[in-house]
């Protein structure tokens, strides 16, 4: 068979070409264009490797550090790097610093991700550690500064990276919420999404034909390896993840950046890229995937439950266009991960291969294709608003204050909810509002009712409703459904009865 008619090629053959400087490497973006313009057969003949990339917030990232022994030696019990408490999973001087560990002085602003970035950049970081002292490790405390050059090992060790795709987040409530999907404005005024779509490594090899244990990758500006599937790897619904490791001493602060999400905490943006060897025409078709073919769900993050309402399916093409339509309304949407940096990752990896600095590895084992994500086994139920809410005393807007005052007394309640003829929430008045209105001789309810009412949803955890009451310094929340129809009321008394506070 002549070389021209070959229908498959091996990683070994590709590596030979890379070493000779003959390999044809395209970024995922270029590959899609080539397949579209010239077809699968031509693309197979012309292309040996396709490089992919992503750059996003990957909270389950961290670094393993070995400090070397102090004199006298210490068996660290607690340790801090730039005031970020880190954990010490092993013997005396091994530390693991997680990206979401946060600084005690600036809890939401500076964290493990920032410390890792500083170390990678070559900056000095302050180490503080304490210990109980043993005969073999007598020292009780140590304080020093370190740089990456002082460390024996400094490995990036990320146990869940590179989500194949992710949700699009939106907020259907009346208040701004701050999430790991960033700031979500009330009443669906914006939406956020994450992931590189058609540039994402796993999306370009969705059957994990070439990506597996032992695959050499671009990680944080250096080289790393896939050491297994990531936690919560869920390939059947295209939610694959990776566990990766790489020498952080050789990485770059451009591709590993600490991040802070207001009222959520700290994280780290990680640049990760995978070369896909084009071994057969099937891989040509797979790497030709477009954003129009990749879908995700628009999820309402204001619902404080594990299973949140799914509002619609949306393609990455729509997400990247800057606006989507939800419930007939145009919602502007922006990316949380950087598409510009994702492209840079793919381009850098391509340059490395072109310059013969990077060869490919065949996986020694494939990633699982059948694992599923189970929910937590919970032996204790937590209460929800629906468990404690009770019927509410209501009134209409055109009623006289005197009539309402009577109702407050006869029903012995503190809150009366104002509704319209279809039972929808208009406002709320308290016994205090009424007493004051009577004293001031006011007659119209409209003058005293509160119209910006803070509400609760029946399926919301009681805990979060309680937090909201405390936040707004109020003692009751009308419970409403998604149409703002009043279902009942939950009061701070109900909460203290059940939660004991």
């Amino acid at each position, binding site marked *: 068979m002549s070389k021209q008619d070959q229908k498959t090629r091996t990683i070994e053959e590709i590596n030979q070409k890379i070493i000779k400087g003959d390999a044809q490497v395209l970024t995922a973006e270029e590959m899609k264009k080539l397949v579209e313009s010239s077809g699968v057969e031509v693309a197979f003949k012309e292309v040996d490797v396709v490089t992919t990339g992503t*750059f*996003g*917030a990957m909270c389950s990232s961290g670094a393993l550090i070995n400090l070397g022994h102090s004199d006298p030696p210490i068996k660290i019990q607690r340790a801090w790097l730039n005031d970020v408490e880190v954990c010490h999973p092993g013997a005396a001087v091994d530390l693991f610093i997680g990206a979401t560990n946060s600084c005690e002085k600036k809890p939401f*602003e500076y964290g493990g991700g920032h410390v890792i970035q500083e170390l990678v950049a070559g900056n000095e970081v302050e180490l503080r550690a304490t210990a109980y002292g043993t005969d073999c490790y007598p020292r009780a405390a140590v304080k020093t500064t370190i740089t990456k050059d002082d460390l024996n090992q400094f490995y990036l060790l990320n146990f869940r990276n590179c989500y194949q795709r992710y949700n699009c987040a939106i907020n259907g409530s009346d208040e701004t919420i*701050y999430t790991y999907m*960033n*700031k979500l*404005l009330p009443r669906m005024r*914006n*939406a*956020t999404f994450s992931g590189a779509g058609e540039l994402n490594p796993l999306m370009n090899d969705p059957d994990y034909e070439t990506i597996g244990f032992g695959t050499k990758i671009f990680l944080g500006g250096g080289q790393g390896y896939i050491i297994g599937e990531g936690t919560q790897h869920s390939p059947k619904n295209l939610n694959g993840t990776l566990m990766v490791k790489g020498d952080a001493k050789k990485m770059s602060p451009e591709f590993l*950046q600490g*991040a*802070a*999400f*207001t009222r959520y905490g700290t*994280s780290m*943006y990680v640049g990760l890229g995978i070369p896909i060897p084009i071994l057969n025409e099937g891989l040509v078709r797979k790497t030709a995937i477009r954003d129009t073919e990749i879908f995700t769900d628009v999820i309402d993050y204001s619902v404080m439950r594990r299973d949140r309402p799914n509002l619609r399916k949306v393609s990455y093409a729509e997400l990247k266009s*800057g606006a989507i339509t939800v419930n007939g309304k145009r*919602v*502007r*949407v*922006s*990316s*949380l*991960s*950087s*598409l*510009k*940096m994702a*492209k840079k990752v793919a381009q850098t990896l391509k340059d490395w291969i072109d310059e013969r600095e990077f060869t490919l590895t065949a996986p020694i084992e494939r990633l699982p294709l059948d694992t599923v994500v189970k929910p937590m086994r919970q032996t204790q139920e937590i209460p929800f608003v629906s468990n404690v809410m009770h019927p509410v005393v209501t009134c209409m807007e055109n009623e006289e204050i005197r009539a309402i005052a009577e109702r407050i007394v006869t029903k012995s309640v503190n809150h009366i909810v104002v509704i319209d003829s279809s039972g929808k929430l208009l406002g709320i008045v308290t016994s205090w509002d009424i007493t004051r209105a009577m004293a001031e001789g006011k007659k119209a309810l409209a003058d005293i009712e509160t119209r910006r009412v803070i509400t609760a949803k029946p399926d919301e955890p009681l805990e979060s409703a309680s937090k909201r009451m405390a936040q707004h310094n109020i003692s009751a929340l009308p419970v409403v459904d998604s149409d703002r129809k009043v279902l009942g009321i939950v009061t701070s008394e109900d909460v203290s009865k059940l939660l004991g506070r």
Partner: protein
Amino acid sequence: MARILIRLNENLVSEPVVSEVILENKVLVAILAAHINSKGGEIVLEVPDEEVDKIVSAFRQKGATVTVPKLIEIDSDRCFNCGSCVALCPVEAISVTKDLSIQFNKEKCVGSVCNICVDACPARAINSVRYSNAEHMRSSSSGYREK
């Protein structure tokens, strides 16, 4: 140019306060936004930098409340172009260019009276700065990228 926010109370809305200040001080100001009803009003004005102090005290003398909003600055060294800020901006002052960079149009930005994007930047690249510190920003027409 600097932006200032004027608040008028119930008694002042019926007076020609803005025109009086303009005429008496002979300064050209642009009205960028105004929300006025019988209960009071809010007006955003654009004033030449060197006249800010004069105009602010003129409005204060007439009984108006004046705030000089801080300007927003995006630090291009810290920004990693994630794009989180883009859809948050109510006046579309932040956009994505063809090469997927973030472009900030300070002419459109209303400054610290808005501030919506500031706490949403994971790189903490967006800051509120006093207008006098932000002089260098105003020399270019379309934001920090050309700086």
